[in-house]
């Protein structure tokens, strides 16, 4: 076991926050590169080629959303957003621009470590051959045979339900914005008809969750979108 340590680039202007984030990320067995500004962060991202980027949205020298757009032009590195703002719009913009996940300040070290772990794991898995079978709870989905089993019993899904399910399964742990999902599954003319998405997520929960009112796998990020939690 001699894999190189994953590199995490942390772009955050507050020194004290950098300090504990670094401690938490190092605890996950990563090496940390720090940057204080957007310009500096973009250069480090190009030079160091990190495995994960942790980005504060409120940087003094520019909007973090622009950085994500720039970055996405040439890199697929996972991006975790730290946002001090409660406004959902900023998160949605960042996620639509290509960010993978977000944490709202204040957050605990435990939450941070969990998110970092999930994002790094996803990056590793990307290298492996994609497996057509996804399992969560008592549900098994065989994407190659379009088969959904729950507790061994076949579950009937409508075409849209199946497409929604496979889209969500394709991005485990990632927050998918409503706009994103609507465009992907219903098409561009439906991006304002969010009730469709909500009703169909409800159908999936009815069919695949033990308690649809308290879902464990198809999670709502209120005001933002949905996340599939394996």
């Amino acid at each position, binding site marked *: 076991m001699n894999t190189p340590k994953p590199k995490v680039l942390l772009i955050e202007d*507050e020194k*004290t*926050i950098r*300090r*504990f*984030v670094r*401690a*938490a990320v190092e*605890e996950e067995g990563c090496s940390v590169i720090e940057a204080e500004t957007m310009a500096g962060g973009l250069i480090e991202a190009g030079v160091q080629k990190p495995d994960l980027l942790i980005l504060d949205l*409120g940087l003094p020298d520019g909007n973090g959303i622009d950085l994500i757009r720039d970055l996405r032009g040439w890199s697929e590195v996972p991006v975790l957003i730290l946002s*001090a*703002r*409660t*406004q*959902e719009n900023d998160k949605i913009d960042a996620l639509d621009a290509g960010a993978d996940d977000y944490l709202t*300040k*204040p*957050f*605990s*070290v*435990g939450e*941070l470590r969990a998110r970092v772990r999930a994002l790094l794991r996803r990056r590793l898995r990307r290298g492996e051959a994609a497996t057509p079978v996804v399992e969560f709870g008592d549900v098994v989905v065989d994407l190659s045979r379009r088969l959904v089993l729950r507790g061994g019993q076949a579950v009937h899904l*409508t*075409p*849209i339900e199946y497409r929604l399910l496979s889209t969500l399964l394709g991005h485990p742990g990632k927050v998918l914005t409503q706009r994103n999902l609507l465009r992907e599954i219903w098409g561009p003319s439906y991006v304002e*008809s*969010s*009730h*469709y998405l*909500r*009703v169909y*997520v*409800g159908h999936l929960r009815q069919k695949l969750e033990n308690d*649809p*009112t*308290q*879902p464990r796998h198809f*999670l*709502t*990020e*209120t*005001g933002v979108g949905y996340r599939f939690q394996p």
Partner: protein
Amino acid sequence: MLLTVLACATTTLVATPLLGYLDLANIVMLFLLTVLLVAITFGRGSAVLASVLGVLLFDIFFVPPRFSLAVENIQYLVTFAVMLITGLITGHLAAGLKQKAHEALTRELRTQALYDVARQLAGALSQAQVVEICHAFTQGQLAAESLILLPDDQGHPTVAMGSSPNCKIDPLLANIAEDSGKTVRNQELSNGYASLYLPLRASMRTRGVLAIAFPTEVVSLPDEQVALLEALASLIGIALERLHYVDVAQSTQLKMVSERLRSSILSALSHDLRTPLTALVGLADSLFLIKPTLPDTALETAQAMHEQAARLANLVGNLLDMARLNAGEITLRREWQPLEEVIGASIKLIESALVAHPVKVRLPADLPLLEFDAVLLERVFCNLLENAAKYAPPGSNIDIAAQPAGEFIEVSISDRGPGLADTDNDRMFDMFVRGDSVAGKPGTGLGLAICRAIVEAHGGTIRATNRPEGGASISFTLPRGTPPILEEESV
């Protein structure tokens, strides 16, 4: 009249000496000339008189036998007839021409006055100015009193602008004019009552009524004057509409500026307050990462620091929310969505506060989609669930239920705690008010106030009761509205 007679007499006197030299036919010409001049000078009536007089005088003084109406030669009857007819027609045409010229002049003056009014109205900056301009016009052009009536809150044109003590209003006629958008005339009203009501029509809607009271001596009103007043009314209507939109634009701009300022202050405040709290929470947590592990007492202190900082962050969140809600007009991001989703998200969000209190959700299967702002409603559920978890004994259930209630859906969150000592609803939902029984429990009394602000912003109500079987229950309503139609999937 006298002058006409005089003119004919003069013609006779002038022509008499010429009788020896001129043919009778030429003397007829002199009379016709007189008729023409009279017609131009005095108008149609005088011209008729001059024609008849001319024929008589010609007959008496010039046609033989002279000084008698008798006629020697029957041929002269033709002369008389031609003379009379020519005189009448000439007089008529000449008089008509004169009247036309006069009317044209009057019309031009009025048109000019209307142009002036249009120009003045275009520059008017206030309704008072419009009223003044209108009043000056009706006074100057028609010697009439005018009053502009603007619609009140119910849309009836009752609010009188300007002061015209001699112009009394019949509200019924004003209403008819406003509603029908047509001019209403009533000649029978007198002694100071307005007899003409013109709607102030503009492109978007009728902006009020212009009432005109004519002096008592004016008996009937020519159509042409009504047309003039209608033109005036539409000019005023357009001016009032322009002023209305100037007002709207100004207040919108003002609102936008203050909205932007408020939200930038709040988000700066939010950033500045949350950043140190984030550092505090994170640094307290990072004490657990130190190797070798710190002694238990130090870790307990670190845990307490984390909890206090998190509570402070929660309080800051509540205060900022309240500031945002209290600042007035909150913009709701309303979307149609199932209630169960926001309930699930809320439970997930405050999972850690609910470990000792299983939440049981019971929703009717046919619960329709509701239109609400999910982020704000999540706040309501979180606050109510946190409250319930705070007061109910560990291990007891919290119940969430919903049922239709007329035009609303009623949602209730009930616990099995000690219940409310005082269900004085209004006071309970006020800011910073805390129940007497809660001393010793942490809290600020902001939670319920925020819930009320959010629910009321959605058009619902919130109330607190004690359940008959014990425990407190907070229920709120949300309007059902008309959910959008969902196209069924073709399978």
